[in-house]
């Protein structure tokens, strides 16, 4: 209860610390605006024109639908890769042989360009939900897998011995010795995978589906509507930023808090 209270009390301070990020973003918008003035609206619409278009799309109502479709695909693919990658990575990490065996396979998976997976997925699944979901899954899986594998492999043996010597209960060993260490590897991998999932899903949709943000991007491109393209990009990046800073970063700080003590 006290922990919860402390965590809740920390929320305003965390939100306030976002001003630094906002300041950096505004500096970036200034650079963007400058680029727009140099190259003209047809090549690079200004931030204001982009946000105006986005506001128009959102007010129209259709944008929410496309975003929901894209978010659903990205999140399903991400959740699948997260579950499979974490579990398999942890198991592989427990055994030296399994780690050795999995390394070349992971290298193949990481080395395979997502666009190649997309082509295969199109052949296998056609132009439905399954294609982008599969592409997201297969692109994110190795990232999470490697994170989980390394987290388990790098566990400090001495700490394990100490835990054993003090006859630490199994639950306590898990929550106080293993979990904090493993999670500190897993979490950054999850965040990287989430960013990846958003990028991949838009790419997959652009080439394979009739709906979603990627498809909307394809339409705006064919109409040479740079402002609408930028608006869609801004929407995707904005959503990613919001999820990362409002959901993942606070959790990351919480689970990595122990590192500061070292």
């Amino acid at each position: 209860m006290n922990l919860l209270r402390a965590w809740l009390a920390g929320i305003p301070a965390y939100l306030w610390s976002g001003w630094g990020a906002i300041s950096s973003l505004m500096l970036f918008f200034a650079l963007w605006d400058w680029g727009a003035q140099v190259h003209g609206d047809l090549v690079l619409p200004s931030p204001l024109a982009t946000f105006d278009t986005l506001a128009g799309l959102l007010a129209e109502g259709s944008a929410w639908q496309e975003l929901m479709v894209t978010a659903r695909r990205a999140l399903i693919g991400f959740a699948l890769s997260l579950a499979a990658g974490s579990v398999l990575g942890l198991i592989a990490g427990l055994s030296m042989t399994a780690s050795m065996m999995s390394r070349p396979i992971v290298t193949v998976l990481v080395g395979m360009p997502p666009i190649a997976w997309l082509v295969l997925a199109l052949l296998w699944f056609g132009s439905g939900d399954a294609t982008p979901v599969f592409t997201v899954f297969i692109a994110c899986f190795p990232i999470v897998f490697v994170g989980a594998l390394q987290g388990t492999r790098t566990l400090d043996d001495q700490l394990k011995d100490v835990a054993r010597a003090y006859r630490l209960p199994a639950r306590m060993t898990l929550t106080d010795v293993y979990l904090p260490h493993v999670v500190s590897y897993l979490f950054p991998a999850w965040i990287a995978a989430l960013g990846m999932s958003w990028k991949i899903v838009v790419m997959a949709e652009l080439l394979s589906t009739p709906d979603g943000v990627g498809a909307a991007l394809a339409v705006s491109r064919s109409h040479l509507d740079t402002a609408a393209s930028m608006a869609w990009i801004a929407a995707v990046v904005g959503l990613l930023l919001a999820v990362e800073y409002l959901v993942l970063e606070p959790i990351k700080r919480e689970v990595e808090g122990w590192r500061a003590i070292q």
Partner: protein
Amino acid sequence: MRQTLIPGLAAHPLFLCGFRPFYLATAGYGVFLLAVWSAMLSGGLPIPEVPGGAVVWHAFELIHGFALASVAGFLLTAVPEFTGCAIVDRRRLLGLFLLWSAGRVAYWLAGAITIWPAALLNLGFLAWLAVMFAPPIWRDPGRPHVSFLYALAALAIAQAGVFLGADPMSWLYVATGVLMILIVIAMSRISMRLINGMLDVEGVSGVEYLARPPRRDLAMFAIGLFTAVEFLLPGNGVSGWLALAASAAVFNLLNDWHIGRHLFNRWVFMLYLVYWLMALGYGLIGVAILGDWPLVSAGRHLLLAGAMSLAIFAVMVVAGRIHAGYWLDRRRWLPVAATLIVAAALCRVLAAVPVLAERANFLMALSALAWMAAFALFLAHFWPVLVGPRPDNAAGCAEPVPLEDTPKSEFAC
């Protein structure tokens, strides 16, 4: 005559320490200027014939007259304290003060005697300050306070631009940016001492205030970039985004200040509000530029009539007493005056809002009155402190010596 007048004047307690004549001049001249400006706006007084017109005159005198006097007073007291060099010699202080006053007179008369005497006297004043402070600041190991020298140099360039440049107003905007950066530099030093001193005196443990350099640097960088781009590309959207970046960076500074209920201590809260006004000012400028609203000037008034004036007031009421050998003033007038400054800045913003255009004159007058009242209150309460001898009858700028029976909390409200 000269041989007796100057030593006689310099021997007056007013010249005991660098801040005394200049803080007096800051408040006195500020009230006078705004009274005259209000009378001019209402048509009661003729507009002075200065190159660039009345608005340039108004801005120049408030920035390079009113604000610069307080900067001089602050540096004349702070630099010896920071670097351990000797405090300014009384005669030299008298000379500096006379030079500043002559600069004011010359600028008022610029229509009749050309701008050049004013340029010479005003720039001479800044040059004198720089020459005086450069050696101790430069010799200080590690040069932790060298940014004050850069700020002085930047102020001098901005002032020279007013006299030499084609568009004097744009150079006054540059001076505004430099002053905001100077406030960030000065406040980081003042707040570290003041807030941690207050926490110490109150026996608070576990709470620490740190003015973190990366946050400060980001704020100064964003303000500096906005100022430069606004100067080079006036009214451009890029400067609008940069103003918003400056606003967010100043809000980001306040992360250091959220230290729980101690924030509401009157000394801490006054300085805290300075950053709020600064952030709101830059935010308003940014939104006004991007939205093409006629509120840029209102935003600038939040910076100058709000943030800068409150910073000046806060520094004067703290340093003005401590370095005159008095403990901090705990009377009621002080928060009242600070509130008046904030109210003045907000009224000035409201006066520029198109919906309230019908009441603009009333709001403008109200704003001027509140601002003048704040500094008049300062004058009334600080006259004996600044003009009279120290309570310990000593010389110099020393702080009061703590006595055994001194009340426990001098910093408390």
